[in-house]
């Protein structure tokens, strides 16, 4: 019989006591979720990898100050969003975003092809174009709007959780989502059924 995975609180307590292996387990547990968050905000695998390394390093350095007032999940997401937004501000100053590095592997994913054809069969042949357009449209949103859209639409988090991560009210989250969707409707008009 397999032993159940220890809860986050236990791993956090062990890390605070100096057990680095416990933190490795947290990294293993959270890297897929945080990868999705950072990747969909940056649209670059390379930047996501570097940023994620820094995020987990920061988490490790600051874990002694983590008092458990929020869940570890919320705490790590807050660190991730803040660091990603800071990174994006610096990157915007440095260079204009190039979207040439869009994920081409997904175009061969049967699930992706099926999901795309159910959205609009007329665009089945233009999966690459759709993917590029999706990324471009997301990049046109403000950083705050992009964070909310990523967490709600792509990662499927509830409004309350997003509000805790961003330290804003649920009303603010809903309002940001409303304006972001409105902007995306205009940008993705050609892919939306009338």
């Amino acid at each position, binding site marked *: 019989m397999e032993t159940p995975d220890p809860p986050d609180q236990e791993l956090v307590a062990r890390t605070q006591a100096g057990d680095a292996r416990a933190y490795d387990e947290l990294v293993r547990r959270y890297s897929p979720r945080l990868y999705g968050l950072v990747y969909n905000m940056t649209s670059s695998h390379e930047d996501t990898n570097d940023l994620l*390394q820094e995020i987990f390093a920061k988490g490790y350095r600051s874990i002694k100050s983590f008092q458990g007032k929020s869940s570890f999940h919320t705490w790590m997401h807050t660190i991730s969003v803040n660091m990603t937004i800071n990174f994006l501000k610096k990157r915007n100053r440095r260079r204009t975003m190039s979207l040439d590095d869009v994920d081409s592997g997904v175009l061969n994913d049967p699930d992706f092809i099926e*999901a795309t054809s159910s959205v609009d069969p007329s665009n089945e042949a233009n999966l690459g174009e759709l993917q590029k357009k999706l990324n471009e449209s997301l990049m046109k949103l403000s950083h705050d709007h992009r964070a909310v859209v990523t967490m709600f639409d792509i990662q499927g988090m509830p409004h309350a959780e997003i509000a805790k991560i961003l330290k804003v009210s649920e009303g603010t989250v809903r309002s940001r989502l409303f304006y972001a969707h409105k902007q995306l409707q205009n940008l993705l008009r050609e892919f939306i059924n009338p």
Partner: protein
Amino acid sequence: MDHNESVSRLLRLKRYEQPPPGYYEDFLSEFQCRQRAEVIQRPLWAIARDRVLRFLTPPSAPRLVMAASFAAVVLASTLLIGPEAQVSHLSGPDEKTSLSLAGTAPSLPMPKTSLRPSKPVSSVQYVLPPRPVGYASARTF
């Protein structure tokens, strides 16, 4: 279909964008390497300081107790060393100075002086140059 729902469905397609297989295992290895590199790159004095602090501070001892005991040690050392230092400072050099002055001071008659009270500080006036220094051009040769 609602336009809002259409946007959400399009955005959900982004969930299929994943890193290559085996990425997360490599990621953890890279993270561990970076952490070790960070530890190696730390200056020696920082490592030594951490070790001393860890040795002196048991994990259960509250910081307030440590601070209070440190303050007590400082106070005790001040009380023990302080008065002795003060006595030697006040008595020693003054005696020598007075003796030497008594022996070498010239016995000249002192002139009579009429002392007047000085002007209050508020009446002091400063004469400013007509042109502030900062206005002068910095690139004049």
